[in-house]
């Protein structure tokens, strides 16, 4: 199944049509000089959900941040919709790429509704449109706007805050969604619920999604493809079925650590 281990730049210089996000020999060093990513290649096609799986410190979050240019690579190219991120207008790039971070990062001084509508307000949408869209997004993540809309983030549970984070990222309908451990730090039941919800949303919204996790079960459940990261590079990419039966030692190590899946 060599064709599925995705290293498109090895196949030639041009990006195949349909690659919404692409890394070409990307390297990134932290400000302190530490090499975080090295020669990483990656290609994500439109509409797929790529799960980046890898142990702590392997460079998953860093990879996400290179896509919306919260960080900038030292070498290589990151392309979004075929255009290098360095050539994008930064604000336009970030409007096309929704970003969900683990701690949600909600604005503590805004109500839940106001949090969800941040980008809509920046885009100067009409009041009624913002209101409608905000309520719609909250319902989408299973939060009653009447009950939660006027609350402040501190009045929500961790899982509810994470859902608001997702609603906020979806509000302006960005075609690309980056999610950094969006269901981390949750009890297994709530986590399961959110994962099921994610699957329903995924099928309905047809977005290109990059989701980070170090939970192999989550990766197998949510990903249409799994990218395995190790010490700063992508060492392979697999469909969930391929992943389960792969005899790649790195994959086996993962599966065995989880007691076989």
């Amino acid at each position: 199944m060599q064709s599925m281990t995705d290293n498109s730049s090895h196949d030639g210089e041009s990006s195949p049509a349909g690659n919404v996000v692409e890394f070409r020999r990307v390297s990134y060093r932290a400000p302190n000089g530490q090499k975080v990513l090295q020669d990483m290649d990656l290609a994500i096609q439109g509409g797929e959900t790529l799960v980046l799986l890898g142990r702590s410190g392997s460079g998953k979050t860093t990879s996400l941040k290179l896509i919306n240019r919260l960080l900038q690579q030292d070498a290589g190219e990151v392309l979004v919709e075929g255009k290098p991120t360095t050539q994008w207008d930064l604000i336009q790039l970030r409007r096309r790429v929704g970003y969900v971070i683990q701690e949600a990062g909600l604005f503590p001084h805004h109500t839940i509704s106001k949090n969800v509508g941040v980008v809509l307000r920046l885009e100067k949408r009409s009041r009624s449109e913002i209101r409608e869209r905000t309520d719609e997004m909250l319902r989408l993540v299973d939060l009653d706007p009447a009950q939660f809309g006027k609350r402040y983030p501190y009045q929500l549970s961790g899982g509810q805050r994470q859902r608001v984070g997702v609603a906020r990222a979806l509000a302006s309908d960005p075609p690309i969604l980056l999610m950094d451990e969006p269901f981390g730090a949750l009890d297994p039941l709530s986590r399961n619920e959110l994962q099921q919800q994610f699957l329903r949303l995924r099928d309905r919204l047809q977005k290109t999604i990059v989701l980070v996790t170090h939970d192999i079960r989550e990766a197998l459940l949510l990903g249409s493809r799994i990218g395995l990261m190790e010490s700063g590079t992508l060492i392979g990419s697999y469909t969930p079925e391929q992943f389960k039966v792969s005899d790649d030692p790195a994959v086996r190590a993962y599966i065995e650590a989880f007691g076989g899946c």
Partner: protein
Amino acid sequence: MLHYILFHQREIGEATLEHIWLVGISILIAVAVGIPLGILMTRKPRLRTAILGSANIIQTIPSLALFGFLLPAPWLGARAERIAIVTLALYSLLPIVRNTYTGIMGVDPAVREAAEGMGLTNGQLLFQVELPLAASFIMAGVRTATVISIGVATIAAAIGAGGLGEFIFRGLAMVNNQLILAGALPAALLALGSDLSLGWVEAGLTPPHV
């Protein structure tokens, strides 16, 4: 005592207004200069030590000496109030600059990251996220500065800038406690009153919390 104050009501009232004016204008200047300096420190970490250091050093100069240093300055030296206002503003700088800086740096990094990730511009990040979240800190700095200034402003009378210090200096010269109190008491009340009312504003600016 009460008799004295009642008798000199008008004079004391005028001096109090003068005092409020000196402090008010100097705080406005300190806010207009200090908040941008504090913001600058968060954007250019290299300038941090230079700005904080300067504000710190100013604070260590005895106020009377600072008044004196400014006397020969052109334009400023021409009017005692100008010197007083500049001195008070300089003194007020440190708490305002420091609190603006701490307040902004205290914003949860996840909140800042989310804001940047959503495509807020630098200005939007500052005005919609950082400053609102730092507002109560900044206000606390303004409050400290105001209370300090009300005290320091009494010394401005030494260079003839007026204010409640007039009574204190006259009382000292004439060894007249009543006269001293006629200046000290309203100054203390003024400090207390502004501390309370600005504390109230500060509480109103505090973002909702756990």
